[in-house]
């Protein structure tokens, strides 16, 4: 009966908020007040439980891959698409899916969990499956310390009831796996990893500026991984799944998106068990498109335009290593709004030398001049520095006719650029 009233109130508030054009998390706020247990009860009813995806980089892409792979096996998946206030957002999304008895039609939930909201969430809901991607310098503005972030992820891992999936190549995340293994014998711990030849492309944050800022080559890999990424081509990859190699075409681009796919494969294999054949999963993976702004391809003037989100040194570095600059016109858009992080020191931890040969066309964004200064220090030429994104985009477009284009952008720059581009060409609403 409790659910009936809560859902009724929630749906009513939601309808009213919609009429007034209010925020999507508002109904969630109301439900948290009138029925604090609603979230836990609704998620507890899901027959296959809750999957949590966390880590500093790649949560959105990885969650999207997990969702689409699970759906390819016929499961109905509940997921949270955006994150303002996490729990309220999830409640608001649940309200759209539940009937008046508080039941959803979903079999399983896949939730992208921000470290900042983790403690509050796991106090209410224990994830059955948790996937931990990495601990990278991303959110120092909010937490001050990487060590703190690692602690948050460790707490999520310790609250997990069935299976924990960890990145074998990230020392902090791997250590969390080892801790859970030692202290929770009932929880399975599975790893995803990289082959020796790909390791050098994935610096951990601590190694990022090892003595010379150069990649340090291989680090010790401990233990077997369920899925290993062994080769990355241009929109293709080879995964070793339980020891057997599978090569496939991909719509995902770049080494880090592809590594996220390896993580998603491990998790989905754990959820589905032996019921699903690996070739079918690999086939489903080949259709997954990148998440909004994560290496997204748009068509402009009959040519591809790639939006590549960069938000921390490791991510930017990986993006530069993933995408070949030759033949592309390049723009870089750096904002320092609070959603981007106000501190732009991290630009100095990325080497831009790979852009030196072909140069950068336009540098834009609120901190365009800082970015230009950074490029100058690496001997990278640029054609123009134009702070306003709209003018910059027009100029960039005019100066790059006949070439495919690539824009590296921080989060809020990406949102604005996407809006501007949508006025001139069709931009698919991926998520």
């Amino acid at each position, binding site marked *: 009966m409790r659910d009936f009233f809560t859902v009724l109130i929630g749906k009513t508030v939601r309808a009213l908020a919609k009429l007034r054009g209010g925020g999507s998390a508002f109904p969630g706020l109301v439900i948290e007040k009138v029925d604090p247990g609603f979230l836990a009860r609704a998620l507890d009813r899901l027959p296959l439980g809750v999957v949590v995806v966390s880590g500093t980089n790649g949560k959105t892409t990885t969650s999207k891959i997990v969702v689409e792979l699970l759906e390819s096996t016929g499961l109905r998946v509940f997921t949270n698409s955006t994150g303002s206030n996490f729990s309220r957002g999830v409640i608001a999304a649940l309200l759209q899916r539940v009937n008046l008895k508080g039941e959803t039609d979903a079999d399983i939930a896949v939730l992208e969990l921000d470290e900042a909201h983790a403690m509050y969430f796991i106090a209410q809901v224990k994830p059955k499956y948790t996937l931990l991607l990495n601990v990278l310098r991303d959110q120092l503005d909010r937490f001050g310390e990487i060590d703190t972030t690692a602690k948050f992820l460790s707490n999520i891992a310790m609250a997990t009831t069935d299976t924990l999936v960890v990145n074998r190549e990230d020392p902090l995340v791997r250590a969390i796996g080892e801790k859970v293994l030692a202290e929770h014998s009932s929880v399975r711990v599975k790893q995803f990893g990289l082959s020796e030849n790909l390791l050098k492309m994935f610096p951990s944050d601590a190694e*990022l500026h090892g003595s010379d800022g150069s990649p340090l080559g291989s680090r010790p890999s401990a233990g077997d991984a369920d899925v290993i990424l062994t080769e990355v081509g241009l929109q293709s990859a080879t995964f070793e799944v339980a020891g057997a190699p599978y090569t496939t075409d991909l719509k995902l681009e770049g080494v880090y998106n592809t590594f996220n796919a390896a993580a998603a494969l491990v998790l989905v294999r754990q959820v589905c068990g032996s019921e699903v054949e690996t070739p079918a999963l690999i086939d489903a993976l080949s259709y997954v498109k990148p998440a909004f702004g994560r290496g997204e391809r748009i068509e402009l003037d009959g040519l591809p335009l790639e939006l590549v989100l960069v938000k921390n040194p490791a991510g930017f570095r990986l993006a530069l290593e993933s995408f070949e600059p030759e033949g592309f016109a390049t723009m870089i858009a750096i904002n320092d709004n609070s959603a981007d992080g106000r501190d732009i020191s991290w630009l100095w931890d990325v080497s831009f030398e790979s852009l030196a040969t072909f140069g950068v066309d336009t540098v834009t964004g609120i901190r365009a*001049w800082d970015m230009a*200064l950074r490029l100058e220090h690496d001997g990278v030429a640029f054609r123009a520095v134009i702070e306003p994104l709209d003018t910059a985009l027009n100029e960039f477009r005019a100066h790059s006719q006949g070439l495919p284009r690539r824009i590296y952008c921080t989060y809020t720059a990406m949102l604005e650029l996407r809006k501007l581009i949508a006025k001139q060409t069709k931009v698919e609403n991926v998520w």
Partner: protein
Amino acid sequence: MTRELVVAQLYPRDMNIYGDNGNVLAVLRRAEKHGLSVRKITVNPGDKMPTDVDIVIGGGGQDSGQTRVHEDLLAKQAQLRDLAESGTPMLMICGLYQLFGHWFRTHTGEEMAGISVLDVTTSAEEKRLIGNIVTDSGLFGEIIGYENHSGQTFLGEKSTPLGRVLVGEGNNAKDDTEGARSHNVIGTYLHGSLLPKNPAITDFLISTAATRRFGEFESAVIDDALVERARESAKRRPR
């Protein structure tokens, strides 16, 4: 043959968190523009501290990084103090700024001994001081950067502040000082990175080092238009 300066980067493996590599890179590029070349030596825990060194630069780190370098730093303290007292220019940011003082008191009340090159003491506080910061230094003009620290630092009589805070917090939440200087050693909480956007400090490090080694320094005329634009846009940003 171009004249060469030797720059030692202290603990880049553990103390590198706020774009500290940018400071070394800025010295390198700026020295080139002045017609000098730079040889970089990295000093990690366990490595020997070079004796023949012209500039020493160090950065900030996690609590865990600070713990890892602490013992090694104490082992090198006599040598670092000699270098400082003989006039070697140094730049220490955030974590190493703190450890170049007398002591650092952690959140749990433990006292980590510093190496007393700077006359400062630091205590960890609950509130982090985070955000864009502008200070007025007199000698180096306005210094522009970003601060992010929970340690609050107070100066003794033998060190002078690097600057007076115009926007931001600086050394602590109580007075308006930022950073500290003794001999030719500069300690500061500003990163961002500091040197690329504050070439007056870079020039100070280079000219002091060059004068000490070669007996003279001839400054080149450098076009700083790009730096000026970056400084202007940084100054406009909210805290």
